[in-house]
């Protein structure tokens, strides 16, 4: 005879990640490190932005560079003489708090002021996975098409700063920067949006000030 039973589980699958994210943030706070998470599509300019900030500011920066399988991004950033840990997700489309916590083991948190975490190029999956960062910057480039912001509401809703990059190419690819800015504000009315052309150095100072300002307002 079989007995049939209902077992209440109420097991939140996301909770494990969120708990780890909180732990990561506690670690950052302990070492007085401000952590910024950079998300954006492949080729939006995340790595380049990180390199540019490193070259411009005096603060000590460490970087966790996420990539599916390569260490190319980590190598690029390493050439700027800052501590870098490459995080390979293997098959996964996003970083999670667990991977970040692994990367932290090799990161000298007490020697840095800022930790930059570069997520895997993806505007979708990172939404579900908090990493423990204090601030999330979403980088989008006009070459992805000016409907990219409109099509990915959630990542922009969670953004603390939106960077619309490669605006020097907008005309060539027929993209409306104004539309992209308006779409970002539709998803996230109060978010700061900065338009940039990082190759030409445009917008960089503004981005650095915005990070500083966000940090000071926390």
């Amino acid at each position, binding site marked *: *005879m*079989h007995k049939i039973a209902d077992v209440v*589980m109420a097991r939140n*699958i996301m909770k494990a990640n969120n708990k780890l994210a909180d732990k990561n943030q506690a670690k950052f706070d302990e070492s007085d490190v401000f952590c910024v998470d950079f998300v954006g599509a492949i080729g939006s300019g995340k790595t380049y932005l990180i390199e540019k900030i490193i070259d411009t500011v005096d603060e000590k920066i460490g970087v966790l560079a996420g990539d599916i399988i390569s260490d190319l991004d980590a190598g690029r950033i390493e050439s700027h003489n800052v501590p870098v840990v490459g995080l390979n997700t293997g098959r996964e*489309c996003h970083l999670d708090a667990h991977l970040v916590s692994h990367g932290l083991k090799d990161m000298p948190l007490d020697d840095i002021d800022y930790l930059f975490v570069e997520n895997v190029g993806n505007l979708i999956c990172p939404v579900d996975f908090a990493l423990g960062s204090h601030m999330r910057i979403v980088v989008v480039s006009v070459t992805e098409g000016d409907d990219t912001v409109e099509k990915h509401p*959630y990542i922009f809703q969670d953004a603390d700063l939106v960077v619309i990059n490669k605006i020097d190419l907008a005309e060539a690819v027929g993209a409306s920067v104004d539309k992209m800015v308006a779409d970002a504000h539709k998803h996230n009315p109060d978010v700061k949006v900065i338009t940039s052309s990082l190759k030409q150095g445009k917008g960089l100072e503004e981005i650095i000030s915005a990070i500083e300002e966000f940090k000071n307002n926390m």
Partner: protein
Amino acid sequence: MHEFSMAQGILNAVLETAEENDANKVTDIVIQIGKLAMLNPEQLTFMLNVLIEDTIAENANIVIEDIDVEIKCYNCDYEGIGDVDDSDHYLPMILCPKCESHRVNVLNGKDVTIKNISIEKEDEDDE
């Protein structure tokens, strides 16, 4: 596309709970998915159906329940279920039902929870 790792996490938790309860079969798995989670219920179900093969959860009925989005409106202070506007999006946008503002704080609706499972086990009286 992290449905696979999610499905794996769900199945591990289900099998663990089933074992703790001396189950020899899992007949139903009820999963709640917030309307704002970046998961496709159909894909998740598909993955789960593949993963449960050759486990005690094989052939289990997988039930997915949508969870409404709870919000607090920054604009008018409304607190409760948010309106889902999917008129020009496959992905729903959330707005305040009272003042139609998008300036809302999402309190609930992003999570994925295994609500409960139904199991079969030997009746102790028969032993």
